[in-house]
């Protein structure tokens, strides 16, 4: 049954995931939720990598490796982001993005 899944189906899923991420990033005010949205976008891209590799070039593994890379980097990025968020919380006593608007002209 899963053999019937085509590249197009996978791309539809990943696109949906990506734009859910974008939507979340633009609308949610909580920094943690925004971070989760970013992760969603990253993983949508990961799905694309794996799907293109599997369907178009099954003879090599480049896409797989890229996906692994992205996972590792996403982990590192998440830890940095969490640290920043903790820093922000200590400074502003809030993790609402609207309270953190000091970086302007």
């Amino acid at each position: 049954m899963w053999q019937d899944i085509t590249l197009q189906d996978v791309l539809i899923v990943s696109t949906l995931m990506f734009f859910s991420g974008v939507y979340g990033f633009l609308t949610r005010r909580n920094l943690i939720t925004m971070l989760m949205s970013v992760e969603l976008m990253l993983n949508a891209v990961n799905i694309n990598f794996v799907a293109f590799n599997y369907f178009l070039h099954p003879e090599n593994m480049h896409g797989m490796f890229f996906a692994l890379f992205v996972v590792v980097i996403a982990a590192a990025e998440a830890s940095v982001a969490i640290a920043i968020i903790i820093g922000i919380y200590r400074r502003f006593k809030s993790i609402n993005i609207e309270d953190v608007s000091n970086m302007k002209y």
Partner: protein
Amino acid sequence: MNAFEYTFLIPFVPLLGFLIIIFNFNRFPKKLTAVLATGFIGFTFVVSIYTAWQYFFQMGPVNGVYPKFIGFDFEWLKLGDHLSVHMGTLIDQASVMMLIVVTTVSLMVHIYSIGYMHDDRGFNRFFAFLQLFSFSMLSLVMATNVFQIYIFWELVGVSSFLLIGFYYEKPSAVAASKKAFIVTRFADLFFLLGILLLSFHVGTFDFISLTNPENFESFNLSGYALFGLSIPALALILIFIGGAGKSAMFPLHIWLPDAMEGPSPVSALIHAATMVVAGVYLVARLFANYALMAPEALALVGYVGAFTSLFAAVIAVTQIDFKRVLAFSTISQIGYMMAGLGVSHYGGEEGLGYMASMFHLFTHAMFKALLFLGAGAVIHAVHTNSIREMGGLRKYMKTTHITFLIATLAIAGFPGLSGFFSKDEIITAAYQSNPLVYYALLVVAGLTAFYMFRLYFLVFWNTEPHYHLKPHDPGKAMLIPLIILALLSILTGYIPFGQFISSDGQPLHTHLHLDMAVISTLVSFTGIALAWMLYKKPSDMPQRLIASASTLYRWAYNKFYIDEVYLFVTRNIIFAYISRPIAWFDRHIVDGTMNAIGWVTVTTSHKIKGLQSGQLQKYAFAFVSAVLVISALLVYYLLNN
């Protein structure tokens, strides 16, 4: 390698002294500075004497001609494959003679300054500048090429500027230093043009090949001429203008009287004995070129020299500032040297003027330095520059009086003293070739004797004003140089100068020209006698004379209003019609454009700064929307192609 390799020490040691003192001038005690500076210059003096001994006596002329050596040489600046600027030391007759002049006077002035500047806060600074000057001047006289002489020409100008403005808290000193620098710098512009024109056509900077008459045929000097002058004449006249600026020739002499604002030892070293004769030295250096390539340029040198000599002597008669009388006397005597060069020809007996000019340069350096140092001692003792407030000093300052009298006799051409011999040679040379110059110089000889003895009688005889503190002879440090220089002022006249210095390198046998000597002696005695009658005892004769020639007196007293002419030209013509429009253009057009650019940027930034709201999600939204729009455009573009 050659025997004169060590001559690089001569300029290098004072440079070292300058660096050591200037970097420690807040730290060194006065005694240490004095010992260091005098020691360094003393060492240089010894090396110079050794060089002279080796050059003139140990080596001597080769085949009857004094050779020219490059003692030390290195490439300083490479400007491409064919052009490079060298630095080095040139050893020939004129440079070795100048070494002796510069180091002797410099050493005397160093010793004298220890006493003279003793209570001055700027003691260390003063000695550092003296070292800098000695370095520059020594490098100038030993320059191997035209560019080196130009570089050090500017450096002596800088040292002169620094030392004239030594009392920088005094506005008049600051003004004088600026004036000196600007006037000489203005003249140096022509010097540079002359160098470039000459080098372009001759193809070498090097003095030895430039001044060798055997090379003249190979120089490419054809080409169009300006104002009906040939290329070498134009180039050499331009170079002479540079020399005239440094040597205070009319009409560029205006800076030298004002330069007397500097301390007296500086006037003695720079503005009497060494730097101001650099112009004479420059013409002498290129003498072969002047004499053989462009006699008309050399004639101009002679006439300018003779006129300046007369002009300055007339002014000197009327001045009442001690040092200014000496300054105009210096201008007059340098005019004498220039005239001596101008009436000379190249080679043999005809080259008498050249040798006489160098001789006069040598003797003049000694007695004029002595006069200035004596003036310094007097001013130190009575605390005024005006000779009206002096008089009767012979009773209080015995040694100063005697040495000053010797120098005055020497400059007046009293038989038996150095000035007599050198002046006699110049007058003889002028008599042989140019009657106009000859009569001018003869009149100057009389005037010189008159104004120098006027000065002498007014200061050391005449009425004695009331002195608050009894003046007295200065201390040993100041007296010893006076005595040494007085001895030199007597003895240097007996050097058989033609044996050592001549236009073409062959020793020249000179003898005293008795008829000339009698005439010039009579003329100078007349001057001395007149001064004796008018000024030895207080009388109203000078006042009556002034009244009977009041117009002439007023003109001479005001230096023939040359300064006013300069002021008029600069203020009312150059400033009003050139500088001010340029300044307006700069302020309104150039600055205006820049200000407009700045204004537009600032205003636009204020208008759009609201975009930087600090709201992260607004940025992200703009970013995502832009990506979407660009992607849509891309897709649309790809589909349509």
